[in-house]
């Protein structure tokens, strides 16, 4: 028998390799990026501690804040469209997959619906760009060129690509429901529609919280599809600029913009806190209240 103290020491030892990698490549860069946001390192006299000045500049400076609030609103819209379109469609697909109407070809549909999620974002963006090209595509209207439709269009491309993810989440939750419960409800006289909303839906409800928070994290960290389609200064007139592209443009510079590391780190920190606060609030407030049923 190993004593408790030795046991913990051994545990720590086994956790160590993963911990070292995690600290070196995740925790340390994150902290140093937040630290960088409190400094001004572009000046002639080297790096100076300036407290929250970078944040004040980001939120208040007429030009910089205009870009920031615009990107924040666009990110919120990007998230909203994902949540409102992707989740219901994912639910519909999962419900159809588990219904008895397509039992035989279930595997084929499941694979087909999930394939876009495995494609490269660049390919998805390129293919859709060709499909909606006003010169030879299916619509004459310049969807990507009009400031009002550009961001919804890009969001829907992304929804098309990733709809398989909530679908798989809900699908696995649905097939985990034991048959005897469903059978009992059938004997009690529930029809398919009633059975879905009264029995299956409450049982998979906790999944929605998880999907919503994951969608939130993914979309507020979003960058790739916008960059692939519209580059680092996403037009028209910044209508598709989200936090990820704003950060990239600021931190790395674009063709005509000189890189500003401190301000870039500030934006990265703000994105981090936006995600951290909401995610923490979700887990503290909501997650524990969601009812889970023992099956």
């Amino acid at each position, binding site marked *: 028998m190993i004593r408790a103290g030795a046991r913990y020491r051994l545990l720590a030892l086994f956790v160590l390799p993963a911990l070292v990698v995690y600290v070196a490549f995740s925790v340390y860069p994150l902290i140093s990026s937040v630290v960088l946001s409190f400094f001004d390192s572009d000046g002639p006299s080297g790096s100076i501690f300036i407290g929250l000045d970078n944040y004040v500049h980001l939120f208040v400076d007429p030009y910089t804040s205009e870009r920031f609030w615009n990107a924040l609103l666009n990110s919120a819209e990007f998230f909203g469209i994902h949540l409102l379109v992707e989740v219901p469609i994912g639910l519909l697909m999962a419900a159809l997959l588990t219904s008895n109407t397509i039992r035989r070809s279930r595997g084929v549909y499941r694979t087909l619906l999930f394939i876009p999620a495995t494609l490269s974002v660049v390919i998805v963006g390129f293919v859709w760009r060709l499909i909606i090209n006003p010169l030879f595509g299916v619509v004459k209207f*310049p*969807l990507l060129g009009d*400031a009002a439709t550009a961001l919804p269009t890009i969001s829907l491309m992304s929804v098309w690509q990733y709809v398989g993810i909530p679908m798989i989440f809900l699908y696995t939750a649905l097939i985990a429901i034991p048959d005897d419960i469903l059978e009992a409800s059938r004997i009690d006289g529930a029809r398919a529609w009633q059975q879905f909303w009264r029995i299956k839906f409450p049982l998979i409800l906790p999944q929605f919280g998880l999907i919503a928070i994951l969608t939130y994290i993914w979309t507020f960290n979003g960058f790739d599809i916008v960059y692939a389609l519209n580059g680092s*200064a996403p037009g*028209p007139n910044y209508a598709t600029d989200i936090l990820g592209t704003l950060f990239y443009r600021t931190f790395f*510079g674009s063709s*005509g913009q000189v890189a500003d590391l401190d301000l870039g780190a500030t934006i990265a920190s703000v994105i981090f806190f936006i995600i951290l606060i909401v995610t923490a609030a979700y887990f503290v407030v909501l997650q524990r209240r969601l009812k889970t049923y023992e099956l």
Partner: protein
Amino acid sequence: MRSKLAPFAAVVVTAIGISLAGCSAGSSDSGDTVTITFGNWRTEDAALWEENVIPAFEESHPGIKVVYQPTDTNDYNAAIQSQIESGTGPDVIMCRPFDVNRAWITDGYFDNLKGLTSIANFTPTALAAWQGADGDPYCVPIASVLAGFYYNTAIFDELGLEVPTTMDEFTAVLKTIKDDGKYLPLALGSADGWQLSYNVLDSIGPNYWKGEDGRLGLIDGTKKMTDPDFVAAFQAFADLKPYLPEGYQSITYEDQMQLFTLGKAAIMADGSWDVTAASATGLELSVFAPPAVESGGQRYLQEMPDQGVGLNAESKNKAAATEFLEWLGSTDFQKIYVDKVPGFFSMGTEPVEYTNPLAQKFADLKVDALLTPRLQLDRLSAGSPPLDDNTWAVLQTILNDGVSAEDATNKLQTDLDSWYVPAG
């Protein structure tokens, strides 16, 4: 005892293994030859450099090998910055013109090149795009690009059109093509903001703001974007709107090239770097210069310093890298380069000939024209908001949302005033 230490030993061994693997990827030069790396954004020219230019250098300089190391142009600045900051940058680095490079010089990326013999082959104007704050050269100028209007000569013949020499004639030509209805007058879309600025405004604009007069005036603060000359230039840009194809808001730079090379559009505003792409389909085509404002008036042409090459201050092979830079500054190199990479023009004082006929036509546009680089890139884009990116977005709003030339120039000047202190 052994059992307790075993996991610890495993961790240590693994860690050593990982660090050794990291080391072995380091320097691997053999004794005789030195290998230098050349970082650049010209992915398109990789074959031309690797098959023509670099072999010529290696032949005359035995013992030095050059590795061409391109990064896509959109990622180039970010890639070079992170490479240099982490000490893994290439030995010689292609330099962006003006403000981005000036920031790189200030950050100590480059060695001063005033000791380089071949720097004498260039005029101060040619060197200006890569000067440090001290006025010294930091990059050897490689090439400049020109911009103008490509036109389909078959369509011009069919409709009996003449090459326009004034802006009024230009508008008349566009109107004739539009009224005829068979072809699109102008292959131009607003999806890519940068090319509205570089290929259109900076092409027709200098005729209004009088080239260097206007550009340097903005820099030293004696001129404003709201001056009538600049407003007129933006107005001339806005006046092109009726001649754009339907759905132009979504038409990208690549789409334009397709419209033109498929013979669907008569005229395309583009830079000289696209001569190979534009003639790829065997179209009968030529180029004309941005027309003068009035008949007999002075003509201005955009000549933009595009590529220079500098020496990484952290390079471990400086002797070999310096030899390479000396050669890049020589006429030997320029002759090979402009011949093999058509659409780019030598910046040396010694004249060279262009074998590509379209490149020669572009070079001919320089005759009788006063040359000027793009308006936005020198000093005016070193702060936030940079005039460069700002112009892209503003030009999009002119075409897409009908913003007036007055409002557009007013916004640009206001944003510029928010940070820019005139150098004069």
